[in-house]
């Protein structure tokens, strides 16, 4: 009993200790000085109530849990649900259903919502790409945003200096990112685990700083603006077409609608996501996909069986980078502006969080996690000060309840022929 009392006491003590500096103090500008002021009494009361609540909860936790377990009428998740949801077949249907919803979505939603959905699609692509590197091949890459930046700047610069359009630049952006992945991968991939993470982190930062300082080419901190939107076989979605081009609404005899542009971009994003899903799905069932997973599990055994670890790692790194390049190109088209600020380390962290939240290696999990991670900050705009707090608590809850991620994937069942 005394042990539990002590635990409850210290747990309760932690609450004001953490809450006081965050919620209890406020910085106020007075003239040119900053002043620290106490918060409103209501905040104090809430902190006190939480402290008391924590004390009581820790004291009675075991008894409450026992009561919960013995009460029969509470709804409970059936035991087989987890198993059912992680089965590859279920997940495939889940992805199909999501794709259908995504297809009809832009025609009912508002313009802002469609724009946000485009952003989610970009992050889904990034998550799926990084999932190859981290989830399948087990290479912790903290500089993934670097390849995203390469893709975005490839489109921006080719458009700016050579006037190339989106569709020409899309494959070039993917190829450029792949090239960077390949070149960076060569020296880096002999490292493992934490060391690899640190070096990739460094490379990500180098790319960003390079973009900021090569002012003559990349526009420095201001970036490149006025990036063209994609066209549909030469039809633009602007109100008025530049010379020698036609607009979409004129060609089809429709009234001009500004949201057409957004919807078109969204559909491109959706198409790319579906393409990514298809490719990765096939890759998983190809020898190279199996080799990635084998490498994650045991590199020495791989070598003893004649698999070349460097080549396999490099292929994972390069392919992951390619998808980041596509996503970057799309991002540049959506923003109409690229600047080094969009490619800071926090982006890498968010993408990594998407992969880990979703469940390493699971595609449906990554999609759901991308939706949660991007939608959550948008939905909680009013509490934007507490955004990090929400992220943090989400991570803690995940660690407690689903340490393998939202929807980890089971191994596929291979039928043996007799």
């Amino acid at each position, binding site marked *: 009993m005394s042990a539990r009392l002590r635990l409850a006491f210290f747990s309760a003590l932690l609450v004001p200790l953490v809450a006081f500096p965050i919620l209890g103090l406020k910085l106020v500008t007075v003239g040119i000085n900053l002043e620290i002021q106490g918060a409103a009494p209501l905040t104090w009361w809430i902190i006190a109530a939480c402290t008391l609540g924590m004390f009581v909860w820790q004291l009675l936790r075991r008894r409450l849990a026992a009561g919960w377990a013995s009460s029969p009428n509470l709804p409970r998740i059936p035991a087989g649900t987890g198993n059912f949801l992680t089965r590859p077949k279920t997940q495939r249907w889940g992805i199909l259903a999501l794709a259908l919803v995504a297809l009809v979505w832009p025609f009912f939603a508002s313009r802002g919502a469609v724009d946000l959905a485009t952003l989610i699609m970009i992050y889904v692509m990034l998550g799926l790409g990084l999932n190859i590197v981290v989830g399948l091949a087990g290479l912790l890459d903290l500089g993934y945003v670097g390849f995203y930046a390469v893709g975005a700047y490839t489109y921006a610069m080719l458009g700016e200096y050579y006037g190339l359009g989106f569709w020409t630049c899309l494959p070039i952006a993917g190829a450029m990112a792949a090239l960077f992945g390949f070149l960076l991968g060569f020296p880096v991939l002999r490292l493992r685990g934490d060391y690899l993470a640190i070096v990739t982190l460094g490379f990500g930062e180098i790319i960003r700083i390079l973009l900021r300082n090569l002012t003559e080419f990349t526009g420095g901190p201001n970036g490149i603006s006025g990036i063209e939107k994609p066209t549909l076989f030469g039809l633009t979605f602007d109100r008025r077409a530049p010379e020698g081009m036609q607009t979409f609404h004129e060609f089809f005899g429709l009234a001009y609608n500004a949201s057409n542009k957004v919807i078109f971009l969204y559909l491109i994003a959706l198409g790319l996501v579906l393409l990514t899903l298809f490719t990765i799905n096939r890759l998983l069932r190809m*020898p*190279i996909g199996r080799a990635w997973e084998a490498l994650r599990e045991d590199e020495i*055994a*791989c*070598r*003893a069986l*004649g*698999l070349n670890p460097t080549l396999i790692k490099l292929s994972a790194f390069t392919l992951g980078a390619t998808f980041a390049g596509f996503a970057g190109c799309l991002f540049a088209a959506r923003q109409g502006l690229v600047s080094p600020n969009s490619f800071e380390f926090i982006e890498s962290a968010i993408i990594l969080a998407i992969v880990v939240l979703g469940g390493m290696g699971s595609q449906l999990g990554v999609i759901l996690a991308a939706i949660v991670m991007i939608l959550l900050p948008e939905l909680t705009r009013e509490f934007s000060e507490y955004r990090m707090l929400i992220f943090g608590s989400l991570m803690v809850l995940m660690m407690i309840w689903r340490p393998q991620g939202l929807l980890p994937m089971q*191994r596929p069942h291979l039928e*043996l022929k007799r």
Partner: protein
Amino acid sequence: MKRPILEVRDLCMRFGGLLAVNGVKLNVYERQVVSIIGPNGAGKTTVFNCLTGFYEPSWGEILLDGEPIHGLPGHRIARKGIVRTFQNVRLFKDMTAVENLLVAQHRHLNTHFLAGLFKTPAFRHSEQDAMALAAHWLEQVELSAVANRPAGTLAYGQQRRLEIARCMMTRPRILMLDEPAAGLNPRETEQLKALIALLRDTHGVTVLLIEHDMKLVMSISDRIVVINQGCPLAEGRPDEIRSNPAVIKAYLGES
């Protein structure tokens, strides 16, 4: 007599001040079972690591069919047909038994990116062949019933057998088994013996064996090499080794 498939001459391995292997020589002929025995810490596994390219020998020559292979990286040596198992089983634990076998065939499969992306007939064919071969070997080692279980969840004896089957998927010429009977019960050891005999007789594989179970070693080996403290001590047929005074001294100590 014809040329040995594997020749090791004057193999030395030095770790700083420690000479772990000193002047070991080996002649392995095709379709033989050759055992390397010796007390713990004698350098048997170090010899294995040198042969399979996990260590680069400090001195000496390793010839496969007369072609030097020392200094090549491990995966290159494996591709030349020398494949090994490990003292502590190294399976891909989260992957299923059959997937373990498929990974090992990587080199023989159609790994063309576009072929796999569009599932061309050639790709399908190659995958089907791989599955058939995996199924065949699962049957050989009596693991068909657990084909779709993660390898890490199998019983220890099953994991040992799966590891040998996985090696066989690479179509090796020389199979190197590092203490395959460690942790097996007598019945499983008998099965292992039958399996090694099968590999040699029907599949034409040359087997190099490190083992402490003397009953197994004596009954299956064609030749035995004894190593003590890194140095070669004796070499010969099982009955010669059994009666060799130097070997008895090394194992039982001076009397």
